[in-house]
């Protein structure tokens, strides 16, 4: 289908199918295609290939065009809060990040703030052992904000560089759970200046339009600063992040490409966009 010489409605129909099937959603897809039609009208694009290249550029533009690092600085206690709905890959991501920062020479401490789900603490403990980092936990059923508070105090005392906070999965339409998240967020804000330096919303690449609602709701209670897109090793394209980028100014910073500790990549917009056309 690439190498198509002429620009006609068939081309635009095919592109619409690619975009919608990639979970960009109707609105974002329509906006992108309209931008292309405009360029065609202004005689700026003459072949199907040029239209496709222009489409990729427009998408990369929406995604911010460059790799953005996590907000980690030397010489301070950095706090990364990991949030998201159930089962998206938060605990696994915390394990991967702990491993990465440990390997880069940072002193890492993990907060086991999912005190609710069956064996959540045990699961995280195994990841911390694999990464070679310490973990602060309370008993199951404890107040997650208390775990966070204790971890921050321990971090200050030990000269920790990076604290990673794993939280319980929660659906964003559950008011009491989002209140709990807001409480955790405020504890962090109060205890450390400029913290959390990163509130990472984890999104499952298989998720459809609901991801936009997730981003808005979590942003409201915990000031989301970056997105992590997991399970991109499946067949889902994760295009919903383009829709989110269009509506909110939140960069995608990380990608999960598997269940192993090293299956973590920095988000590269052009690589991501190219993959939408595979």
């Amino acid at each position: 289908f690439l190498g198509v010489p002429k620009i006609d409605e068939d081309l635009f129909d095919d592109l619409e199918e690619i975009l919608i099937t990639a979970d960009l959603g109707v609105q974002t897809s329509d906006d992108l295609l309209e931008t292309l039609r405009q360029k065609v009208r202004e005689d700026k694009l003459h072949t199907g290939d040029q239209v496709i290249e222009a489409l990729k550029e427009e998408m990369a533009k929406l995604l911010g065009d460059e790799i953005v690092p996590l907000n980690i600085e030397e010489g301070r206690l950095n706090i990364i809060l990991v949030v998201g709905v159930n089962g998206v890959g938060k605990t696994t991501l915390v394990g991967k990040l702990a491993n990465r920062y440990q390997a880069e020479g940072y002193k890492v401490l993990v907060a086991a703030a999912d005190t609710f789900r069956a064996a959540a603490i045990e699961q995280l403990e195994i990841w911390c052992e694999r990464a070679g980092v310490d973990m602060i936990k309370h008993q199951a059923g404890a107040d997650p904000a208390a775990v966070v508070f204790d971890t921050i105090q321990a971090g200050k005392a030990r000269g920790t560089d990076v604290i990673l906070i794993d939280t319980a999965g929660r659906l964003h339409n559950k008011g009491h759970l989002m209140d709990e998240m807001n409480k955790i967020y405020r504890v962090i804000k109060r205890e450390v200046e400029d913290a959390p330096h990163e509130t990472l919303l984890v999104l499952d690449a298989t998720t459809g339009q609901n991801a936009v609602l997730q981003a808005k709701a979590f942003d409201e209670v915990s000031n989301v600063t970056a997105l992590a897109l997991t399970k991109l090793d499946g067949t889902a394209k994760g295009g919903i992040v383009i829709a989110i980028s269009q509506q909110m100014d939140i960069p995608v910073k990380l990608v999960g490409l598997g269940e192993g500790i090293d299956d973590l990549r920095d988000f590269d917009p052009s690589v991501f966009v190219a993959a939408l056309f595979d």
Partner: protein
Amino acid sequence: NLSEKLQNTFKKLRGKGRLTENDINEAMREVRLALLEADVNFRVTRDFINKVKEKALGSDILESLTPGQQVVKIVYDELVEMIGGTQSKLTVSSKIPTVIMLVGLQGAGKTTATGKLANYLRKSGKKPLLVACDVYRPAAIEQLHVVGRQLNIPVFDMGQGDPAEIALKGIDQALSQGRDTVLLDTAGRLHIDDEMMSELIEIKEEAKPHEILLLVDAMTGQDAVNVADSFNSQIGIDGIILTKMDGDTRGGAALSIKAVTGKPIKFISAGEKLDTLEPFYPDRLAQRILG
């Protein structure tokens, strides 16, 4: 919502007198938008719209005083029919134990559903045994034990052994303990992971489950058809459980999956607690998808 949008569409068209096929196309655009926004698959939506348009044109809609309402009814009825009837019946084997295998992508809700299903079966007089066939995920076995403890339902595990062997030993255990239903919790896996799908085929061949249930997260987008179609063609599924329906996702993936596999949605999981498994009602899901 769709009803209101269609009322508006037809209100604008009203002044022109008789409705034409083009006017119906206008209404179909609204329906298409609603379905795509609800995560119904692109091609499933296209086929659905074609069917509905045909029905609309075949009806007396062009003469109707309330075309908007009529279109909504045609769409709703077609949706309910496509999604399928209420069939929460699980296969029960005449020779115990009945073996039920839960499969699906990572994080879909299998381990939790294993407990929920066991709880549900116990309420109807069954004696379930949970079997831990996920030997990969950190603390997966412990998670199933916690679930079993919370329900006071026995759990069988053999640590990180061979899942097919664990399933067989679990079935032996059920027989020796007088348990009549075995629930196999399997590891989350990708449909494109050949090694893991081979493992699933092996578990199936050894344990010979009477019921294979595919767990699908209700917020799954366009990829739902790929996953369901692949699992169904590789191991064959008997039914689907839609999870996390206590969220606010519209759940269009359900329609896509039913349309592509023809397999019934048997249960809805709507909560994290172990008593939140419900039978599936197609009319409620139809309402939800239409928003």
